[in-house]
């Protein structure tokens, strides 16, 4: 493991920032934190997590996909992508880092490959930061994510006045090589002490031991037809907060913008909570908020796992617990379903 005195963090940022964009969590004027591009004088936030997840770096809110330019009767097709600079994201938490694998499985590890997403993934180096003070709303442990041992290209720990680094990938090694003059080699003892303390704290959090045995493919229909969705969704506003702060929500819409002399086609985040999410030329199969609400949780807990070796597409970051305007969230859904007696498959 490599270490750097915490007092030299700014020097480290300067060194990394000199080679390309570096993003770190920064406190904003509202008292919450966002990832911001590092520049001299910008200080890293001590917040546990950013309002929005780190997915934005690879799956931005909006992204230009293709331009069509009209030239008389000819249409020129233009790929708007510019050569992307290599960038570094520093301070990603274990939950967000785990979410990348979940999105990768859809956009990179199955066909067709999303080349826009893949391009950003390839150019980004993720430096994760171990948690030390998990919130009561954190439950990454439920999905076997270790908050004290985050993944990513490089893992980092801040303990005892030092920052510890461990590289996990080739990309990570290249980053470490570039900053080696600042680093010293050290053993992992203090890190291990911090890890066991964090694990102890995490084990006492309220939602890390929820029972997920009901959420398997063979129970899909019974869950789908369960009555619980009526009550759970009754006051859902149909806003997109949960989906937009969620690190694993990855749905988008493709829209066209008339530029006057052509068309700019872009994609933007979409939300299954929105009324026109499934609107098609013929009809909309999800007419009420109940169907939309059910879709979101069935996708996270049943449909995605069915396609991806049982991996749930939730990482327990707790953002939906904090942001939902009516305080409805995946933990309440799991608990309510667990407390509801099983109903016969397909029956109501």
């Amino acid at each position, binding site marked *: 493991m490599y270490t750097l005195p915490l007092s030299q963090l700014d020097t480290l940022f300067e060194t990394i920032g000199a080679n390309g964009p570096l993003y770190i969590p920064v406190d904003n*004027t509202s*008292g919450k934190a966002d990832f911001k591009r590092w520049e001299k004088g910008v200080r890293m936030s001590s917040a546990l997590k950013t309002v929005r997840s780190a997915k934005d770096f690879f799956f931005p809110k909006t992204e230009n996909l293709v331009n069509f330019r009209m030239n008389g009767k000819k249409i020129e097709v233009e790929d708007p992508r510019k050569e992307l600079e290599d960038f570094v994201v520093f301070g990603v938490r274990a939950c967000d880092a785990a979410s990348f694998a979940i999105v990768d499985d859809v956009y990179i590890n199955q066909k067709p490959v999303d080349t826009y997403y893949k391009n950003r993934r390839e150019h980004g180096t993720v430096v994760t930061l171990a948690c030390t003070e998990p919130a009561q709303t954190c439950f990454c442990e439920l999905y076997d994510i270790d908050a004290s041992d985050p993944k990513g290209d490089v893992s980092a720990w801040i303990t005892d006045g030092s920052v510890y680094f461990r590289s996990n990938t080739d990309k990570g090694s290249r980053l470490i090589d570039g900053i080696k003059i600042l680093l010293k080699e050290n053993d992992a003892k203090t890190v291990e002490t911090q890890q066991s303390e964090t694990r102890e704290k995490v084990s006492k959090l309220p939602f890390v031991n929820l029972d997920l045995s009901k959420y398997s493919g063979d129970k899909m229909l019974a869950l789908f037809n369960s009555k619980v969705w009526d009550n759970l969704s009754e006051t859902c506003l149909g*806003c997109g*907060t949960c989906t937009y702060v969620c690190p694993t929500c990855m749905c988008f819409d493709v829209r066209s913008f008339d530029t006057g002399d052509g068309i700019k086609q872009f994609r933007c985040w979409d939300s299954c909570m929105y009324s026109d999410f499934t609107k098609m030329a013929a009809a909309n199969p999800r007419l009420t908020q109940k169907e939309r609400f059910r879709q979101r949780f069935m996708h996270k807990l049943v449909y995605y796992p069915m396609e991806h070796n049982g991996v749930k597409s939730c990482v327990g970051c707790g953002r939906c*617990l904090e942001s939902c305007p009516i305080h409805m969230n995946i933990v309440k859904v799991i608990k309510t379903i667990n407390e509801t007696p099983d109903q016969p498959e397909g029956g109501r």
Partner: protein
Amino acid sequence: MQDGKITNQLLSRSKELLSGGKVQIIIGWRKGLFDYDVTPSLFTTAEDLENNFVYDEWCGANLSKYLVKETRKIETAKDTVRMNNRMAKTKNPDAKDAPEPQTKILVFLKPCDTYSFTELLKEHRINREDVYAVGIPCDGMKDPAKKEISERCTVCKSKKHVTYDELIGEDGGVQDSKRFDMVEKIEGMTPDERFAFWQGELSRCIRCNACRDICPACTCEHCIFDNPNSGASQKVAADDFEESMYHIIRAWHVAGRCTDCGECSRVCPQNIPLHLLNRKFIKDINELYGPYTAGSDMETKPPMLTWTKNDAEPNVVYARDKADAQGGR
């Protein structure tokens, strides 16, 4: 005031009305996983109320807007029976009328919620007969993130209950509020500073639409932002311009109807002080057309829906100066 005693009072009264058949549905707040994460909810049984109903300093959610949807369900059910009765009569003139379903909703309203409720009644969005409104006292609600009294409650405009069928606790009065202080501060900025302020705030917007969806003044059947042909659909905005446009259109649309309940800012995941946009409109309307509070009664005609020859032309700053010279209105 929102202590265990008042919760028990609300609880026993709602159970009483429920068992007496006066109401069938109760819209209240449901206990969460922690103390602060209560959820607006519909209760239909005494058992559910007993176990899960709560009213404390975390019950900031304004329940009035749910009445739009819920009273419509009641009206639709009644219409269906009436229609069937008419159909039956065409076949058999002696057919007996099936009874119309009698459903009434009890809703708990804090003083500021009664303004939203009244405004919704005024705009014919709620059928009054389907609602049994119970006014309840409020000492200010807490912000779950900060664990302290929220900004909107520190500048509470009124402890008065405008419309209700029954009052639990004491009624209060309209208060001298400092709610326009921040608006004045922003007015005092140079145009560049002001632009930078709003650009900074609105740049955080993720277009989750929570501000629109929670807003009791936003009850359009089909919102312009749900229309893909409007150029500003409900999806994430294409650029900064669209982001600002969304908020500006919304502020204009609720102008003169916004009761300043502050729900927009409460639900914003990015802590954007959206209520300031609405307060600016309220302040301007007060200055241009005389004091007016949306939802403060059923009678006063809203200034944006009336016209007099002396009305200032509010579309240019010049007109406001002229209005000032003429002493307000």
